[in-house]
């Protein structure tokens, strides 16, 4: 019988094969390192693009200034209100979104019968897939008119109020609260489901009611997972751009509920296309501020996860 010379033999060890092996290992290494390269490049570019304006205009003037007139003859680039809007907008979105999301997660993991979960869970998962522009459109045509009615009711007869037609901080906050729901629900539900059954059984056996068990035993046991959910929600809310561009009114103001406001993200979306020179550089500074926020959130997140893993080991 003729000896097979097929290169498909898995037994032989020709030189060509060891070379292929080595090349394969190299290629996979390069793919792996690509993520590091990407993050380093993005960080470097954000700093290179965003930092010069801080020097040119002055750090204090940009970060603590409240007047945003980038195209005026004597331009001024204060972004304090923009930063505050992002912080307060995100905080308010959490105040609304986290309780609703957490309670929904409790419903799915602790209260609802399995059959109902099978129907409700896929429906709620759809929230994560809806594109942000669609949230923007619905917010613009459903929430804005409602907010306008509310505004008219609150500021009836006021002569000093700047009318926004409903495009205000509150509207953007509601849209953001809805957009963080899927994140909060999903992560908290997995956290709750990861709590060992024994905990619940022990608590119930000691005479606690179901609700007492949920709020005094299960929730505290799942706290690091829920903290993760909240932090991820913060990241989602502070980074969202397109959905709130349409509904926030988009003028630079102090972030009060019925003021037309501009977020870090919407500042970039609305002016990037026609900006140039120093104005463009300052827009990148805004990007850098947002990037700094995100990096802090990432660090907090990895801290929480590490702590959660340690607690689980105990």
């Amino acid at each position, binding site marked *: 019988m003729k000896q097979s010379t097929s290169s498909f033999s898995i037994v032989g060890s020709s030189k060509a094969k060891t070379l292929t092996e080595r090349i*394969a290992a190299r290629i996979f290494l390069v793919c792996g390192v690509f993520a590091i390269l990407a993050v380093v490049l993005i960080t470097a570019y954000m700093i290179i693009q965003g930092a010069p304006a801080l020097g040119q205009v002055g750090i204090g003037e940009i970060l603590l200034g409240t007047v945003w007139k980038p195209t005026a003859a004597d331009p001024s680039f204060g972004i304090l209100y923009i930063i505050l809007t992002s912080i307060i907008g995100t905080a308010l979105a959490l105040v609304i979104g986290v309780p609703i999301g957490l309670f929904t997660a409790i419903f799915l993991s602790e209260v609802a019968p399995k059959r109902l979960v099978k129907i409700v869970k896929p429906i709620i998962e759809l929230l994560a897939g809806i594109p942000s522009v669609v949230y923007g459109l619905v917010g613009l045509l459903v929430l804005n008119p409602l907010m306008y009615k509310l505004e008219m009711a609150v500021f009836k007869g006021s002569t000093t109020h700047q009318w926004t037609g409903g495009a205000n901080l509150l509207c953007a906050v509601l849209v953001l609260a809805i957009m963080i729901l899927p994140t909060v629900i999903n992560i908290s539900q997995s956290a709750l489901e990861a709590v060992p059954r024994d905990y619940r059984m022990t608590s119930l056996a000691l005479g606690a009611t179901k609700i007492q068990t949920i709020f005094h035993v299960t929730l505290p046991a799942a706290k690091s997972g829920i903290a993760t959910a909240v932090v991820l929600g913060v990241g989602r809310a502070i980074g969202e751009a397109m959905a709130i561009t349409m509904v926030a009114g988009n003028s630079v103001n102090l972030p009060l509920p019925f003021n037309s406001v501009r977020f870090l993200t919407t500042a970039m979306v609305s002016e990037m296309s026609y900006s140039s020179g120093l104005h463009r550089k300052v827009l990148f500074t805004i990007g850098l501020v947002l990037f700094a926020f995100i990096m802090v959130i990432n660090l907090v997140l990895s801290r929480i996860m590490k702590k959660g893993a340690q607690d689980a080991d105990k």
Partner: protein
Amino acid sequence: MQTNSIYIKKKHPSDAVLTGLIYLCALISIFIVVGIIVYVFVRGVGQIDWTFLTTVKSSKNGTYGIAGNLLNTLYIIIITLLIATPLGVGAAIYLNEYAKPGRLVRAIEFTTETLSGIPSIIFGMFGMVFFGTTLGLGYSILTGALTLTLLILPLITRNTQEALRTVPDSYRSGALGIGATKWYMIRTILLPSAMPGIITGVILAIGRIVGESAALIFTAGSGYFLPKSIGGAFSKILESGGTLTIEMYLRMTNAEYDAAFGIAVVLLVIVLFINALTKFLTKRFDVTRLDERRKKKSK
């Protein structure tokens, strides 16, 4: 009289309130999802007809269709996946099969995590300056696709890693034991077994790309023309092309709400389809469940 008996249920008014709140919040969540989807369909379905899907915006012909944007979306999906899938799968193979735990692995995992947390508008700014200006690609479909590659990379890496983890170790030792080299083992045993998981990741990535807007508006631009020749179909890659979401955003800013709702319906149909497909795939190919099914059968 004994009041502390465990046989008599004590009434807890706070329990009733909390139970009510739990149901209320669940109802709110469901109402929001169903409300948004129904509202968009009711307002948008009437907009969709054959001309809407097959024409481009043109004041000369009086048409305002989205054919060009549909094509752009398809282009961006295909090019992004062509670049991101090998990279993401390769990274996952490196992390799971080659790397020894240590600094490098921690760095890769941390940066992958970081990438998935960076907001898309930052990717958009970076893509505009790096791919658009530094590499000189300008506003083009390629710039958009390269930017989105960074965005979906973590998604594909994660899903492939997950899939590789479900492949039993006995497969690996079996292949290596009969003398297969590592790459041969990966190519013929691991990748086919992990394929459903990889495909699920790719489909999720398609969903992400279809819905993305902030990362594309400053990278891929807003062109909406169809290529006129075969050569044009290739050079289109280097031309500006707005996806469905970008077109929808632009129509919104022009107060063309009817057309915007039409596009929203198209987007939602794609999203719903992708959702159903991933559900189907994960159920069908879940390795652990397959094993359970086999066990049940053998009983």
